């Protein structure tokens, strides 16, 4: 292994790898694009919160409440530093990336006529054909509610964003552009500062808001929101070795402070009578109610953990696993990769089809060998239609995967193919 990642050590830090699968087989977990496993430090951070400092943050004057507030706000600072946000006020804790995207879509929908955020008939919202349902359906619904038009950029046969009609799709009427940073199916990375800089330039040119869905990138490579130059970015804690039940919406401060709130309730108001309310600035404005404190604290520990190992090392490690996987899988008769086969602007997600073997059957066989992959449409149904498949089998790698995990995958697929095709 020519990477600096010590997989054995890392595996030992994730308790789940000491369990066995389907009898007595070690767990080979290749489904991190769905959700990642959690290191003990993350679980301990949550437990420490509950057993020593649990109280409602921002709401009490007693010692526990002070400590809970400090831990919760400390987690916000950690995430802000992790993303290189200008200020921790740019970090909003949500329950998931799905909530983050809905937050933005509803918040824009709540902007009254006259607000620069207001969306109406004649306006346009743009996504792409490689979006996860989470970054597609909220925009369909916003379009339906406001009368705006939903348009999308297509994808090429190789699995890249198609730019041929960029200027036509992102036109002057475009108010919001929501694009994924990395496809959860194809593995394609959309590098808005590299190969796709014209996309970003075009968005700026027409003055649209730019949301980046970074669910599949933030856990795997260094993302710097200031360098990226988007307006909003989201990711989910559970895919980044963090707890379930926590996500992040980053937004530029000057935008967040002007956006109308989404969820309303306690701890986000400035003043309230029975008739109406006024709201605090971000992030409080967007965090109504007693927040998911323990999960935020867990996420703080998760980003610390990832940073300590180094996102650059993690990305390099994953690239070398991806290379090995693509090379090995391609040797299997009838197997085709869905997504780029080269390693340029590519993450560690590999989708494939095997002639004569349905993904469900393949996944089932791999499961019997102790290998966890995902099969199905991966919440990207339109993309499946685009590539004329009903479903794919998807292996995704993370810092705790080794070359031997990849080899087991290749061998498992070959074995399963024999079982279904040659029997």
């Amino acid at each position, binding site marked *: 292994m020519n990477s600096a990642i010590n997989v054995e050590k890392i595996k030992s830090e994730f308790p789940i790898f000491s369990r066995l699968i389907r009898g007595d087989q070690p767990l080979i977990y290749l489904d991190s694009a769905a959700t990642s496993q959690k290191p003990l430090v993350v679980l301990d951070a949550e437990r420490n919160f509950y057993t020593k400092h649990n109280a409602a943050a921002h709401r009490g004057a007693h010692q526990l409440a002070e400590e809970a507030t400090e831990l919760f706000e400390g987690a916000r600072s950690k995430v802000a530093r992790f993303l290189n946000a200008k200020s921790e006020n740019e970090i909003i804790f949500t329950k998931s990336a799905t909530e983050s995207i809905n937050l933005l879509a509803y918040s824009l929908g709540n902007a009254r006529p006259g607000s620069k955020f207001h969306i109406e008939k004649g306006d346009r919202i743009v996504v792409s054909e490689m979006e996860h349902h989470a970054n597609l359906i909220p925009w369909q619904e916003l379009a339906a509610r406001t009368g705006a038009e939903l348009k999308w950029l297509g994808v090429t046969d190789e699995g890249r964003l198609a730019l041929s009609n960029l200027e036509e799709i992102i036109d002057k009427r475009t108010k919001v552009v929501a694009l994924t940073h990395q496809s959860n199916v194809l593995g394609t990375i959309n590098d808005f500062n590299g190969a796709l800089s014209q996309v970003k330039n075009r968005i700026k040119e027409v003055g649209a808001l730019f949301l980046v869905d970074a669910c599949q990138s933030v856990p795997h490579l260094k993302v710097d929101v200031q360098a990226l130059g988007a307006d909003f970015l989201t990711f989910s804690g559970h895919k980044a070795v963090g707890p379930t039940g926590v996500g992040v919406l980053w937004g530029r401060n000057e935008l967040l402070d002007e956006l109308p709130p989404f969820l309303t309730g306690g701890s986000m108001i400035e003043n309230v009578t029975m008739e109406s309310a006024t709201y605090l600035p971000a992030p409080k404005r967007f965090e109504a109610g007693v927040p998911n404190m323990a999960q935020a604290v867990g996420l703080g520990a998760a980003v610390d953990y990832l940073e300590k190992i180094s996102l650059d090392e993690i990305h390099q490690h994953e690239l070398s696993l991806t290379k090995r996987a693509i090379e090995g899988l391609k040797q299997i008769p009838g197997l085709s990769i869905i997504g780029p086969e080269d390693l340029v602007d590519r993450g560690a997600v590999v989708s494939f089809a095997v002639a004569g073997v*349905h993904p*469900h059957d393949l996944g089932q066989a791999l499961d019997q060998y102790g290998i966890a992959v995902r099969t199905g449409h991966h919440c990207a149904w339109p993309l*499946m239609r685009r590539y004329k498949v009903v*479903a794919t089998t998807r292996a995704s790698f993370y810092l705790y995967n080794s070359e031997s995990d990849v080899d087991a995958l290749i061998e498992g697929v070959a074995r399963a193919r024999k079982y279904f095709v040659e029997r």
Partner: protein
Amino acid sequence: MDLDSLYQEVILDHYKRPLNKKLEPNPTVQVHHVNTSCGDEVTLNLHTDGRVVAKISWEGVGCSISQASHSVMSDLLKGKSVEEALGLVDEFQKMLQSKGIDAGNEEHLQDGVAFAGVAKFPARVKCALLGWMAFKDALQQSIAKKR
């Protein structure tokens, strides 16, 4: 549990040589069902006079379990009375939702009992039931139509 007890010979045979997989024209009712969790689809043509199931034919894409299950279903229920057919659907469904406790009555379900092992894999139960539920839907529609 090893692979063979899930993928019994019978299942793989039906998968490779599915019965009635070709839509017969002029059905009494046509239905289209989708397994939303994976995208598998089936189109089913039912021919019936409202008392007896005359013919079941289908087209579709899906995994071996779903394809084999459509095949078994279309063969087993053909020629049965409406009541018998619905009874068998219920029996098959019960077996599949038993989490592996109910091994199925081979006299009634015939090749259908090969799917008893599927019940141990919750994520696959829907695959095995897809065609049967489509048939039930079609039958109920045909009855409603007759009234």
